[in-house]
């Protein structure tokens, strides 16, 4: 019999409903798992074990009394530490917010609470979601459970690793240029970036507001659908959230992709894509073909300008979004040796932000400066429009596009840390979707030398149902998503026996 932490959300909900297990059992099993593996993986910045157990017991009590329970009652989840949690510190893995305790929940967090989900903790990330390896965390790097010498991807590396290794049944991350999908690909998890506006951003600490979108990590498309059913929907606190009905994503999982038109963008199979990655994607395309999907080639000609445009727009927005951290109202405030207010702000920012954050603030400030705005920001916005048109055109012919999520499998820690540009290129296939605002999912596509390869399915705006349906069908035909990392044992002396 599988361990409780190995259950899928669907299975766990069944067992909970039939009272074969209690929410307390399930939560305890995950907290124990965290205890067991955290020393090696380090997914969490904060583990909220006491709150989690109290909430789980509350769910059990309610169930015992026959009270109505939410659709995720008793399911232990992890939250990227970029999502505000009332009364629980929310750090963005930054010194700047190391001790910041928000007085409010992000909308997605309150929706999850309302649904009865149990938060086991806040996960590690690249500082302020800027990075692709979680090495930019101001606290510590998170390791890839599939190979502890490698990164889990980023910026939502903690959320990805936690789900991959069974510390949580699902988790939330945020995706600005691939920050959900890329770690999903590198850790063999299902990782969805919903359409911009599908999920409320209220309480998501902003990196680049026009690109940021919250998305779920899970170990199957079905589990991701469970999470989407709860987090998706209009929120009047976020004026960019879209006011249209939320479908039942579970109902979309028909298992049938016959006649589904899948486009293969030729620009996604260029130099730089590792052969092992390409091979997995080719196999996957054949699998879909075998399932009755119609495959055809398509062109997204402006793909190669995506990274450049992204590294203007995202830093520009971040340079404004991060201006609020001035040491005046909350968070870190430098007091030693400062003479006045200007110095307080300058020193606070100098000490509170890490190098990648500073790099992007400076890039963005430069791009918006008088005399450069037209050449950089405006031009990048034009590229963005062209990329969006590429997708619009492709979706006239196809329901879904397929390609690799990341050109490589998980890379080694420190491998790309000193070369920001190489790090940026890791997001070459994920960035265009953020720029265009449509949706995409990364699913376990196979393995290359024992390391997971992510398969990216890209959908049109509000095409999440199709993405989940195709993913679910692919899972029926494959077993990659069911595999667990063989986490090497911790190298520490065995406990003395009593």
């Amino acid at each position, binding site marked *: 019999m599988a361990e409780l932490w190995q259950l899928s959300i669907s299975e766990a909900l069944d067992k909970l409903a039939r009272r074969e297990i209690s929410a307390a059992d399930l939560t305890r099993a995950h907290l124990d798992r965290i205890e067991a593996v955290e020393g090696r993986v380090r997914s969490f910045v904060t583990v909220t074990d006491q709150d989690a157990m109290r909430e789980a017991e509350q769910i059990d009590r309610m169930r015992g009394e026959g009270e109505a329970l939410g659709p995720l009652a008793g399911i232990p989840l992890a939250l990227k530490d970029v*999502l*505000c949690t009332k009364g629980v510190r*929310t750090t*963005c893995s930054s010194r700047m*917010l190391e001790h*910041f305790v*928000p*007085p*409010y929940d*992000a909308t997605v967090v309150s929706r999850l609470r309302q649904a009865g989900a149990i938060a086991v903790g806040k996960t590690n990330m690249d500082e302020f979601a800027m990075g692709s390896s979680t090495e930019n965390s101001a606290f510590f790097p998170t390791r890839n459970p599939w190979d502890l010498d490698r990164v889990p991807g980023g910026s939502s590396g903690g959320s990805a690793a936690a789900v991959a290794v069974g510390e949580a049944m699902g988790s939330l991350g945020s995706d600005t240029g691939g920050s959900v999908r890329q770690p999903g690909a590198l850790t063999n998890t299902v990782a969805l970036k919903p359409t911009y506006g599908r999920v409320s*951003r*209220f*309480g*998501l*600490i*902003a990196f*680049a*507001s*026009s690109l940021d979108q919250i998305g779920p990590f899970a170990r199957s498309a079905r589990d991701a659908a469970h999470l989407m059913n709860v987090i998706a929907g209009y929120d*009047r*606190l*976020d*004026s*960019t959230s879209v006011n249209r009905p939320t479908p039942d994503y579970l109902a979309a999982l028909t298992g049938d992709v016959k006649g589904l038109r899948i486009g293969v963008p030729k620009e996604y199979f260029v130099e730089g894509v590792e052969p092992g990655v390409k091979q997995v994607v080719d196999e996957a395309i054949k699998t879909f073909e075998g399932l009755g999907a119609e495959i055809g080639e398509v062109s997204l000609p402006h793909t190669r300008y995506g990274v450049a445009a992204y590294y203007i727009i995202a830093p*520009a*927005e971040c*340079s*404004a979004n*991060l*201006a*609020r951290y*001035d040491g*005046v*109202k*909350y*968070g870190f405030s430098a007091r030693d040796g400062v003479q*006045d*207010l200007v110095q307080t*702000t300058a020193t606070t920012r100098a000490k509170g932000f890490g190098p990648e954050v500073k790099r992007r603030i400076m890039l963005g*400030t430069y791009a*918006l*400066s*008088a005399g450069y*705005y037209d050449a950089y*920001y405006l031009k990048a916005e034009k590229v963005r429009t062209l990329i969006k048109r590429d997708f619009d055109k492709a979706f006239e012919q196809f329901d879904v596009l397929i390609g690799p999520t990341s050109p490589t499998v998980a890379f080694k820690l420190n491998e790309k840390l000193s070369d920001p540009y190489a790090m940026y290129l890791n997001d070459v296939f994920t960035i265009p979707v953020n720029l265009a605002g449509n949706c995409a999912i990364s699913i376990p596509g196979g393995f290359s030398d024992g390391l997971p390869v992510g398969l990216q399915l890209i959908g049109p705006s509000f095409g999440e149902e199709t993405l989940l349906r195709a993913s679910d069908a692919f899972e029926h035909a494959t077993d990659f998503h069911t595999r667990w990392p063989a986490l090497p044992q911790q190298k520490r002396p065995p406990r003395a026996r009593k």
Partner: protein
Amino acid sequence: MPTASPKTDVVYEVTIGLEVHAQLLTASKMFCRCPTDYANAAPNTHNCPICMGFPGTLPVINEQAIDYTIMTALALNCEIAEYSKFDRKNYFYPDLPKGYQISQYDVPLSTNGHLTIHVNGEDRRIGITRIHLEEDTGRHLEREGRGEAYSLIDLNRAGVPLMEIVGEPDIRTPEEARLYMEKLRSILLYLGVNSGRMEEGALRCDANISVRPKGQKEFGAKVEIKNMNSFRAVERALAYEAERQEAELRAGHTIHQQTRGWREDKGITVAQRTKEEANDYRYFPEPDLPRLVISREWVARIRAVMPELPDAKRERFIETYGLSDYDADQLTSERALAEYFETAVKSRPAEHRLTRAKSVANWVVGDLRRLLNAAGTEIGESPVRPEGIAELVELVERNTINGKQAKDVLEKAFASGEMPGAIVTREGIAQISDTGELEAAVEAAIAENPKAVEDYKSGKTSAVQFLVGQVMRQTKGRAKPDVVSPLLLEKLEKL
């Protein structure tokens, strides 16, 4: 300092453009639900995570503020944009919680309007470049104490809707600038979108002023004047600055583009920062807010509920009530005053309205306003309600009291809040129009003064004056001499 030869024979002309910031009288702030009535509140009590710029919070547009801006734009004859957007204006200041201000940059809500002022009996049209909407900042005070300098920050004001009205450089004199501000304030008050309180900072004015030799095509270097907190300050500061710039030019000096602050206490402007120190605000579209689509239906809806504006009201008052230009000007300078006047006139039946209207206008513009000013009371809070003034006018019209008594009654009514009629009755100061009472008084005077009666009979007509005086004394002045005399003569003839 480049010193060319002093220019003594050149005539200079002044060019002024005003930038006005008006806080909107919405119940809640521009992008959150905090109340805007922070005037007497303790610091940092009108705040929430949104207006304090907490991480993860997002702005939500207050539609009332858009309504008010459209309304103002219509009143100022502006074009309303079909599409507009908000932008981020980036700069660091401790009273700016987000490190940027949500404002409007290249696509403001409205553009291209005008406002007409009356100068020396002539109409002058001053162009309005644009009207846009933004959020106010907090307040920041530098303090010193216990040998240390420190800063205090109050974010109550942060996020209050602020409408910026940018005027064309069409103003030629400091007086015109004051008149423009007065007219603008009046319109804002009419619309009910702003409190008009310059002293509280609810209405603020910055000015761009330049001086050039008459006939020169290019404008002179623009100097921005800040910190003018009253109409008087606007006029004084600009007069000072115009003179200063002219003197500089006459002395052969060059005027540099800069920002100067008005020092009310010293009556001078002081340099604050030069062009080189100017901020680069790095504007870019606010990604947290969708583009604003202003449907023509929306504009029509607002147009339909627009109140009558000062100029239209002034014309109507002259036509309908036959008021003098002066009275009409005075009454319509403030919406509440005009409404007070009209309520008073309409509170009585329609006949004699024309004469009554003039009397009401006289009382309102004259004695009532004097009393209000002395008490520091707004017309809306006047203890004498419009019905009271109407009653007072009626009492005079019917000769129940005379003008002098009416002034007295008004003062009493103003002090106590009683209706004039009630005061007249209680104090017995009504003039005697009841012939019965008057006859009795006349008969008494004849009976008690046989000597005077004799004198009259013997042809001394002056005796009548004496007897009238006796009647007046007896009635404590409530009798009217022109009624008493004929009655007295009639009685004397009958003797």
